[in-house]
């Protein structure tokens, strides 16, 4: 396969000056050759995502020799959002694609652009917590990609043990721990504003606590009745960010550190707590071998010790655009059914260490998972978890990460940050054309 590609590439290179046509043809082999169906499968370019996609393509092809899956990648993050929307709107989407569930899923006009899967195989087999995040107008459009993940605090168990600390249940306990950690010469809270999205966890990951304090919040928030700046429980996230900065609890290079730095500090015990998505465990382990069981996880603490809940992110979804038709559509549905089966889960587990429970019934992550994933599972099994706000409301401002960086770097205060975010949210809701804004 590879040598063939090189040969074709060289051949094309030799003749390109004459023909002046795109070299694209050498990437995509003829889809109708020998009755074989080729599906292009678009995923984001995260290293673990690509690993999983390739493994799934391989294992699926082994069972379905008539179908070939070709993995394509796209940028992650907001650049990727853009690309997905552009390609959907121009009718130019790949045959199958992976994309976020929740509010980002709602923003791609699923009823217009995606094929509903309700009659599909294995759809009834999916966790309801997941299907609600890929449902529009009572129709399910996606199957889960990977497992649930938590927005929580990863902590170094060795540091906690050495200093005799216990897992905090309230914010005050957490800050008391941090004071002792700082006194021991270790950075209490790791922040990595070199990658701005990581700044949002104190706000987004605190949502389970907001919901406990104010169960009506998501509804009122969607209807333009509740605001971050005026809801004390919601404002708390911004205040936590400010406190951590004001007390000098961040690692010294918080402004420039990137995720790999942050993970290394955590693994080496140079930092004690890192508020982040649990999905980063796979990267942490890949780059810091031997840290599987040194790192634990706890929910971001709130005010009530008895009600400390974990904020959970639903897995991304795999969707079929309406532009996929005929034999390709049948093949695509088969592929989605495979992803939503226990074989599909096993294939994903083989490619990459699972970092959270799967959303497919009957799929287990096994006992061989890192400590942090076990900690996370305990919250979920105990009923102490709730989905993040972006899965309960379509309203999500695009500038939250920059605002959090401002608050967390002392450029602005918590109140101003929350107000700014309310403005940002208003703009988004207006652009979405939601009623009441």
């Amino acid at each position, binding site marked *: 396969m590879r040598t063939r590609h090189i040969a074709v590439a060289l051949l094309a290179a030799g003749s390109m000056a004459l023909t002046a046509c795109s070299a694209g043809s050498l990437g995509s082999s003829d889809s109708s050759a020998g009755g074989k169906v080729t599906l292009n499968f678009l995923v984001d370019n995260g290293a673990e995502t690509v690993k999983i996609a390739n493994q799934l393509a391989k294992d699926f092809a082994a069972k379905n020799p008539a179908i070939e899956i070709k993995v394509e990648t796209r940028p992650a993050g907001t650049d990727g959002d853009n690309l997905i929307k552009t390609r*959907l709107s121009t009718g130019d989407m790949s045959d199958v694609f992976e994309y976020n569930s929740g509010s980002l899923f709602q923003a791609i006009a699923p009823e217009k652009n995606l094929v509903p899967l309700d009659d599909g195989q294995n759809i009834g087999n999916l966790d309801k917590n997941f299907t609600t995040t890929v449902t529009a107008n009572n129709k399910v459009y996606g199957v889960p990609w990977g497992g649930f993940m938590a927005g929580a605090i990863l902590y170094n168990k060795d540091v906690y043990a050495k200093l005799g600390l216990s897992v905090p249940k309230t914010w005050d306990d957490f800050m008391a721990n941090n004071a002792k950690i700082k006194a021991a010469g270790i950075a209490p809270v790791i922040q990595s504003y070199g990658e*701005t999205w990581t700044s949002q966890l104190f706000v987004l990951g605190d949502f389970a606590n907001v919901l406990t304090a104010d169960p009506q919040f998501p509804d009122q928030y969607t209807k333009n009745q509740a605001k971050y700046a005026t809801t004390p429980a919601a404002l708390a996230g911004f205040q936590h960010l400010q406190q951590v900065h004001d007390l000098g609890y961040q690692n010294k290079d918080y402004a420039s550190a990137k995720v790999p730095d942050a993970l290394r500090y955590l693994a080496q015990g140079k930092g004690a707590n890192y508020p982040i998505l649990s999905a980063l465990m796979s990267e942490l382990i890949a780059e810091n071998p031997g840290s599987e069981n040194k790192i634990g996880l706890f929910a971001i603490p709130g005010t009530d010790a008895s009600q400390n809940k974990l904020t959970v992110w639903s897995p991304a979804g795999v969707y079929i655009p309406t532009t996929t038709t005929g034999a390709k559509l049948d093949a695509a549905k088969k592929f989605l059914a495979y992803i939503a089966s226990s074989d599909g889960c096993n294939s994903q587990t083989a490619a990459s260490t699972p970092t959270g429970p799967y959303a497919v019934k009957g799929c287990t992550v096994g006992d061989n998972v890192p400590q942090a994933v076990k900690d996370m599972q305990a919250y979920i099994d105990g009923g102490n978890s709730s989905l993040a706000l972006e899965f309960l409301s379509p309203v999500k401002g695009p500038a939250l990460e920059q605002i959090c960086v401002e608050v967390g770097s002392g450029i602005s205060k918590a109140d101003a940050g929350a107000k700014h975010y309310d403005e940002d949210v208003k703009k*988004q809701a207006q*652009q*979405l*054309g939601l009623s009441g804004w």
Partner: protein
Amino acid sequence: MATTTVTRPAETLVSSAGRVRAKSPYPHWFYLPAAVIYGVLFIVPTIIAFYFSLTRWSIFDSKFIGLGNYRTFFQEPALVTSLWHTLIYAVVTSGLKVVLGLLLAMLLTSQILARGYLRSVVFFPVLVSTIGVGLTFTVLMNPEKGLINQSLSLIGIQGPGWLTDPSYALLSVALVDVWKGVGLATLIYIAGIVSIPQEYFEAARVDGAGAWENFRHIVLPLARPATVTVITLSLIGGLRSFDLIWAMTRGGPGFTSDVIASVIYKQYQAGFYGLSTAGNVVLFLVVTAIVLPLSRFLNRKEVEL
């Protein structure tokens, strides 16, 4: 003197020789190939964009909402500051490019060793990918581990957080922009300087003029077309600048290095296409309001010379 040649164009000569006017040696159809491509792929989309700037456009559907997007855009808190950032960035980069470009061009046309090497090394960054340069300098400017601050600490200076300190971020990116772009300014100046007839310098030498007089009375006025080109290009580039800022700070920390182009891009990324297109129109107006009068001013001076 130059004006007398300009008033003697070839077409009057030809038509006075009794030929038909349509047989001008400068036919209008020479415009055609460029005009078709440019018109279809630039003018038409731009005009459509004007219409879409008046709509709420989420790419999947659009709805006419009048000037609502412009209202929202001017309420965007980051816009007013980003306007200032844009101006600072444009003035700093084009100013430094003019000054450094001219100095480097003087140096690189004078009698020094390794002139070929120096020319190459100054020009080379122009050729390297902006994204690549941005990523590289982000690493070099890292406040703790970056080479720049490591070197400064060797001589006892505590370097700032070039890209992480709100008061330095924008200027640091501007400096990298100059690092990458000064080679082009230098090249334009070198072309200007070497095209100055040697007779001028010989006459000046006979008159006993020194290096400063040469610079002040020969190079500076005669390299003026080059200066106009450098200023115009780098000002427009600076006002529209986006790639490098995006690669290095993404407008951060917070919003402290946001320029208009990056604000527009963020709206675009968020899926607010109508709003972003309205931002495009605003940027267009800002750039026109600055560049048009300036270039008219510079070009008029040039004709008078």
